[in-house]
């Protein structure tokens, strides 16, 4: 035990180990905070909730902070609702029903046009549906008619899909044309105060419009951007941290500790126990582990616990068990073991109190170095669409970005780079510490 503490003190002499420890510490803090702030069920709801939760987000846009590095700024999403204080309302009572005019104001300062302008309404009526007209007033005073029609209980209007409007705007796509500066030849954005006038008529006394939202979808969003389903990637990226750490640590610890116990048992009891463990190892070395995990994921369950269990089971009897065995063979002959035997110590006492603690220093570097490979194994499986079906993981984000999202071909690089960079940070953190530990605990390497 003292050796281990001493080893850790030595660790602080290596600058690379300090960087590694800092990275690991940050990851731990982030994962604890994530689990506390966004509990598992909430994360699943936000990640798999459907249109209702992320419908107002723009589609596949980079994070908002990327604007800091741009000379021409991309727009952020603007949401306008009836409840806003700035909305001016004018009501004219009619014989039956009413005429209401809502005026929304917003200031547009970005250098690019938004992704889309979406209006959504909820109305209440018995037989005759309300009639809505929408007008768009630009900062230079032009009034553009967007839509005039009767609406159902739930109705939405997307400017980008209005081909007639596009023709009236001179062939420009509506979301660009609505913000275009007509003074200039080029397609550019007219900055300033815009106005949206929603003028509607109801034809029954009980009839009303309870929701009239305007969402001007931006081209940047949040801390991590959004994916092709308009989901906020923050949830996936942040929840990927505890999952990656848990998978890597549990798999690495479980595998190493089980391997060392089996190696010790084999060496101590010898005979058929040793023989059996050796044979299992040989067979296991012939098993293609990744393919078997793929098979388990495809045929049984993609749940992260199943995959984790199978990974540990398949990795116990690997090459490492052979090197532990070689070490135990030497330790078994040492005088202190003989002394223990002579005073009548039980086998289990010798194995767990004398044999195993002796090789623990050798175990630690391998244990730490094993973490990144298991983290990447999980990412590999998830990238083959064998990730956990409910929880978001980095590998699943990469899979969606690469496959269905077509992120490479469409240039959504942030979408792949975010999980990839976090994977690198995790891998690098543990690898840096592991390599330093390897030098400390394996004296033969110390001078090298």
């Amino acid at each position, binding site marked *: 035990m003292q050796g281990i503490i001493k080893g850790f003190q030595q660790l602080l002499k290596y600058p690379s180990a300090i960087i590694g420890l800092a990275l690991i510490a940050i990851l731990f803090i982030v994962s604890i905070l994530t689990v506390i702030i966004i509990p598992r069920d909430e994360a699943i709801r936000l990640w798999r909730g459907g249109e209702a939760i992320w419908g107002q987000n723009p589609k596949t846009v980079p994070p908002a902070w990327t604007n800091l590095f741009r000379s021409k700024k991309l727009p952020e999403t603007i949401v306008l609702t009836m409840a806003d204080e700035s909305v001016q309302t004018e009501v004219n009572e009619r014989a039956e029903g009413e005429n209401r005019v809502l005026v929304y104001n917003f200031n547009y300062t970005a250098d690019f046009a938004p992704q889309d302008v979406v209006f959504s309404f909820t109305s209440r009526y018995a037989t005759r549906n309300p009639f809505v007209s929408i007008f768009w007033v630009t900062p230079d005073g032009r009034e553009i008619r967007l839509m005039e029609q009767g609406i159902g209980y739930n109705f939405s209007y997307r400017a980008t899909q209005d081909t007639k409007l596009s023709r009236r705007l001179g062939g420009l796509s509506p979301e660009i044309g609505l913000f275009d500066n007509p003074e200039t030849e080029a397609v550019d954005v007219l900055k300033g105060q815009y106005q949206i006038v929603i003028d509607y008529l109801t034809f029954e006394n009980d009839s009303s419009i309870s929701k009239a939202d305007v969402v001007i979808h931006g081209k940047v969003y949040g801390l991590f951007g959004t994916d092709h389903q308009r989901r906020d990637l923050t949830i996936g990226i942040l929840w990927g941290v505890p999952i990656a750490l848990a998978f890597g640590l549990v798999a690495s610890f479980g595998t190493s500790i089980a391997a060392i116990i089996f190696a010790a048992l084999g060496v101590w009891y010898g005979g058929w126990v040793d023989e059996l463990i050796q044979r299992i190892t040989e067979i296991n070395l012939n*098993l*293609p582990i*990744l393919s078997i995990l793929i098979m388990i994921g495809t*045929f049984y369950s993609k749940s992260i616990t199943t995959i984790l269990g199978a990974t540990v089971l398949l990795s116990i009897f690997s090459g490492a068990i052979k090197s532990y065995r070689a070490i135990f063979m030497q330790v078994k002959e040492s005088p202190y073991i003989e002394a223990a035997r002579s005073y009548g110590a039980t086998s289990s006492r010798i194995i767990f109190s004398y044999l195993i603690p002796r090789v623990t220093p050798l175990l630690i570097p391998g244990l730490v170095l094993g973490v990144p490979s298991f983290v*990447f194994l999980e990412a590999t499986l998830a990238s*083959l669409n064998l990730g956990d079906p409910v929880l978001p993981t980095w590998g699943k984000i990469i899979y969606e970005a690469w496959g269905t999202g077509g992120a490479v071909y469409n240039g959504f690089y942030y979408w792949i780079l975010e999980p990839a960079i976090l*994977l690198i940070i995790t891998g690098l953190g543990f690898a840096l510490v*592991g390599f330093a530990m390897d030098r400390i605990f394996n004296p033969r390497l110390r001078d090298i």
Partner: protein
Amino acid sequence: MSVTTPELEAPQGVPQEQTTSPKRKNSTFARVAKYTLLKFASIFLSVVVAVYLTILIANMGGYVDQIVRGQIREFIGQQLRADQNYQQMDPAEKNAFFLAQVERAEKRYGLDKPFAVRSLTFLWNAIRMDFGTAQLMASDTGSRQVKLIILDRLGPTLLLVGASNLILFFGSIALALMLSRSYGNFWDKLIIGFSPTSSAPSWFYGLFLILLFAAVFRWLPFGGMIDSPPPRDQLGYILNVGKHLILPTMAIILSNLFISIYNWRTFFLIYSSEDYVEMAKAKGLSDRDIQYRYILRPTLPTIITSFALLVIGLWTGLILTEGVFQWPGLGRTFITAIGLYDTPVIVALTIIYAYLLAITVFVLDFVYALVDPRVKIGS
């Protein structure tokens, strides 16, 4: 090499071998042959067990049977819907006819026998590389035979593994030797500092390489093995495949190079502090001679072992790399099979990977026996 003196060769055992009688030579041959045979038998046995385990995992709880049964029913249902005679039968007759067809098909698939019997039949078939027919996938020639599908795809995988491994093996040994000669200098520290990067698998590097060289710079193709349509002349064809080979090979090399250099440099350093190397240095031998005769030769078995482990890791590690690069090899076939849920192909590929692993282990064991005269048999 001209510097070497006869008395220096003596401890290496080389001149002794040249002067040995035919009988001694024969015993070397017998030793290698016996070792090889024993190894072959033990590896073959472990492959059989591994294959049987694969079959058990693939069919635990009859889960796969259910899929097959469902697919049989769906397929026959589709077939019958297009059948004029069947359409004119009355409902009871229709049902009886349908069930009879299903039963016949299930018998053909051997689903009526107990699982223990079926698993043994499957094991026997798998050992003979007879994997039956695929459910949905087909080979280039349109055959449904799993064996043909796999044979079609083996070539590209071997090309990729071969190209990357050769560069990796010789490149890292050469670099490791160079570094071990001048350890502690800037380059040594730089490359050792890079060794943690090897914890990422090759597909991961593939993502970045494609992003950089294909998407941003547009220098190299995104993936695939050949342009479509392929160039007509032979030279153009080879160059085109070569162009497609660059990025995946780079990805594999990047993810393995630094750790291999690190491992081998460590070995070389440990061996170069041995007494006999110090002795050679004291005798004033050239660096080159010391490296080849006193460092490289005795570490060869270790080098081969670590190379074997590398190749074993590469075989299955390639699955997603091929997927990322759309390389038409075994790995991509595996991914397609997962996507289509094509059970026979998935099981067959897992078994093929087990075979490839075993062949790798066997070949390297054989080479090991050749280069290391210390290998003991039977004791």
